[in-house]
C-alpha cells in the first residue's frame, strides 16, 4: 500500500524522524488554520500518489493568509495526471542549504536490505542514478545485524554528506531503518532530505510503501485504507476480497494463481485480443468467490467475453464447475463465458457442466483453444 506524503510523514514522525511542522487540510479554511499553526511562510502541497506535482502546479509557497487562500483554492480539485486533489498538506517552509536523498528497500538479488544515500538529492535523483551512480552510496544491511549507528556513520561519510550534517544524518538513518523494518515498509524514501542553513537535517518529503502482508500486526494501518484505489472496478473487487487489476481490453479474465492469470493475459494477447483485467481468485474457487469475480467483471462495460481459466491443484475442478453454475444462477452475465478447466477432478467438473453448455457458456479443452475462442467472441482482434 502506497501512502500519501502526509501519511508517510506522520509515519516517519512516529519513529522520531524529524519533519517540518504542518498538518492536513481538506478545505481552504482548514489550510488557513494549518498555516497559522505552522507559521509563515508555508508550503501548500497537493496530496496525490503521482510524481511531478510541482510542475503541475500542485506545490506552492505562501507568505500570507491571502496567498494560502489563493493557492489552496487553486490546488484543491486540481487534476494532476488523472488524480484529483482532495487533500492538502500545509507545512512551515524550510530554507534549504542542501538536498540529500535517503532510502531503504529490499535487494532481492543480495537478499539483504539495501540503503541508498546521496549528497545529490532532489528531483533529479533518478538522473543522478544513471549519469553519476558513484554519487549514490549504497549499504547492504544484514537483517540479523540491523543498522548500527557506527555503520551509519561510515555510510554517511562515504556518501560525502556535509560535515555539519553527518551526526544528525547518521542518527536519522538508523531511525529510518527502524521505520523500514519495525514499520514493515517495502520502501521508505526521503527525497529530499534537507540540510537547513541553520544546520538542521530533516525530511522534506516522504515516500512510503507498506508491506500489505504485515497488516495483521499493524492495526494502526486501518486509517490508511480506502484512500488508495483510483479505479472503480478495483474498488468493487477489493470490497469482495479479490485480487483484481483493471486493464483496457475487452476479454474479462478469471484464473487461479497469479502466474496462470498472467499467462492467460499473455495468451489472449498472442491470439490477437486484449485483456480487460487481471483477476486471480487464488485457491478458494468456490461459488461465492466465482460469483463475486463474475459480478466484478460483468460490471465492466468494456468486457465482450469472459475467459475462466482454472488449473486445479488444491482447488478441485468439480467444485469450480459447481461454483460457476451457482454463480450464474445468482448473477445475470451479459457476456459469453469460455471455460477451460483442468487438473484435480477435471473430468467430474466437465461432466457437471456438460448439460449447461450453450453459446453463452462454452468449454474448451486447452488454454490456447479457450483464449482463441474468447478473443473471437469478443469481436476478434482489437
Amino acid at each position: 500500500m502506497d501512502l500519501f506524503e502526509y501519511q508517510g510523514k506522520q509515519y516517519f514522525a512516529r519513529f522520531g524522524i524529524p519533519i517540518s511542522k504542518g498538518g492536513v487540510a481538506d478545505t481552504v479554511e482548514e489550510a488557513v488554520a494549518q498555516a497559522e499553526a505552522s507559521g509563515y511562510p508555508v508550503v501548500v502541497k497537493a496530496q496525490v500518489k503521482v510524481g511531478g506535482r510541482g510542475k503541475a502546479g500542485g506545490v506552492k509557497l505562501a507568505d500570507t493568509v491571502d496567498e494560502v487562500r489563493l493557492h489552496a483554492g487553486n490546488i484543491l480539485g486540481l487534476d494532476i495526471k488523472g488524480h484529483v486533489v482532495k487533500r492538502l498538506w500545509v507545512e512551515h517552509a524550510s530554507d534549504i542549504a542542501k538536498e540529500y536523498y535517503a532510502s531503504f528497500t529490499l535487494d532481492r538479488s543480495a537478499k539483504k536490505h539495501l540503503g541508498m544515500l546521496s549528497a545529490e538529492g532532489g528531483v533529479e535523483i533518478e538522473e543522478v542514478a544513471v549519469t553519476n551512480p558513484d554519487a549514490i552510496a549504497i549499504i547492504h544491511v544484514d537483517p540479523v545485524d540491523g543498522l548500527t549507528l557506527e555503520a551509519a556513520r561510515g555510510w554517511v561519510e562515504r556518501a560525502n554528506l556535509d560535515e555539519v550534517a553527518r551526526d544528525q544524518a547518521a542518527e536519522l538513518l538508523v531511525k529510518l531503518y527502524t521505520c523500514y523494518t519495525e514499520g514493515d515498509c517495502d520502501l521508505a524514501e526521503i527525497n529530499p532530505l534537507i540540510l537547513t542553513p541553520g544546520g538542521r537535517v530533516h525530511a522534506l518529503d516522504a515516500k512510503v510503501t507498506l508491506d500489505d502482508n504485515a497488516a495483521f500486526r499493524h492495526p494502526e494501518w486501518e486509517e490508511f485504507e480506502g484512500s488508495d484505489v483510483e479505479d472503480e472496478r478495483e474498488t468493487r473487487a477489493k470490497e469482495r476480497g479479490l485480487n483484481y487489476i483493471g486493464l483496457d481490453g475487452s476479454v474479462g479474465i478469471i484464473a487461479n494463481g497469479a502466474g496462470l492469470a498472467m499467462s492467460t493475459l499473455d495468451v489472449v494477447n498472442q491470439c490477437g485480443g486484449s485483456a480487460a483485467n487481471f483477476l486471480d481468485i487464488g485457491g478458494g474457487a468456490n461459488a461465492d468467490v466465482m460469483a463475486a469475480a463474475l459480478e466484478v467483471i460483468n460490471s465492466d462495460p468494456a468486457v465482450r467475453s469472459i475467459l475462466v481459466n482454472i488449473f486445479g491443484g488444491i482447488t478441485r475442478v468439480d467444485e469450480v464447475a459447481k461454483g460457476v453454475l451457482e454463480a450464474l444462477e445468482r448473477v445475470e452475465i451479459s457476456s459469453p463465458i469460455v471455460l477451460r478447466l483442468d487438473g484435480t477432478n477435471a473430468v467430474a467438473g466437465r461432466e457437471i457442466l456438460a448439460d449447461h453448455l450453450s453459446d453463452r457458456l462454452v468449454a474448451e479443452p486447452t488454454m490456447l483453444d479457450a483464449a482463441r475462442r474468447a478473443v473471437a467472441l469478443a469481436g476478434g482482434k482489437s
Partner: protein
Amino acid sequence: MSIFVDENTKVVVQGISPTSQGLYHGLRNRAYGTHVVAGTNPNRGGEEIEGIPVFATVAEAVEATGANASFISVPPKFAAAAIVEAAAAGVPFVVCITEGIPAIDEALAYNRLVREYPGTRLLGPNCPGIISPGKCNIGITSGDIAMPGGPVGIVSRSGTLTYQALHELSQQGVGQTTCVGIGGDPVPGTSFIDCLSAFEADQDTKAIMMIGEIGGSAEEEAAEFIASSVTKPVVSYVAGVTAPPGRKMGHAGAIISGSKGTAQAKMDALAGAGVTVALNPTEAGEAMVDVVRKLG
C-alpha cells in the same frame, strides 16, 4: 534419481492439528506415498492424529523419528519462526508453502539460515512445494498430474504454472525427475540457480524446464548461470509479457519497476544463454517434447 527429495525422505509436518492445513496437505502427501513420520504441535505432544505421532517440537520429532524434511503451512505470522525452528533442529530440507509472510520476517529468517544453519535448505515460502514423481511429494501439487521416470526436471516460480507445466509434459508422455516450485516471494530460500545446478548434477535429468515470471532479476541471473554452467538443454517460459509496469500481480514477486524485470528482458537474457524460449505454456511443453525426442 531426483533432487532434494527421494524415496528415503521422511517428513515432519509442523503445526498439525485435526483442523490444520498441515494435516490436510500432510495426509494428501502421505496418500501419494510420501513418508510422513511426524507432526508437531506445542499443545499436543504425545498425541497421534490420523496415525501420525505428534511431538511438541521439531527437535523431539527429529530425535524420535529421524525426520529429514519438514513441511510448513502454518499461518504467515508463525511461519518464519517455524522455519527457524526446523533449521535449529537440524532438518536439512524445509518446505514452506505459506503465502503472505511479511518481507521483513522472510529476509530475517533467510539470513539466519545462511549464517546460523548453513546445513538447511529452505524451499519457498509461498511455493507449491516439490514432487519427485513416484517417490515423494511435499506440498500442494496434485500427484496425479505428474509422471514418474524422467527425463525432465522442472523448476518454476509460479504455482499454477508449475501444474500447467507438469500437465503439458505428462499429457505427451514425458515424465519428470523432480518438479520444484521455488515460489514467487521476494526472498526465496531456494533459487533457480540452486535447482539448475542440482539438475545439472543429477544423472537422470536430461533436460530442464524453467518457468519464470516478471519482476526481480532471478531469471536474468539464471540465464548467466545457464550460459556458464549448464550443459543440458533448457526450455523456458516467462509469464507476464502483457503485465502493466508498476503493478503487483498477485505475488509480492511479480512487479515490474521501470524497464527492469520485464518478461521481454528476461526472455532475451534466456535466449541469449542458448535457452529455447516459448511464448506460452503449451508451446513450452511442445518444445520440451521435441527436445526429449531428440535425446532419443
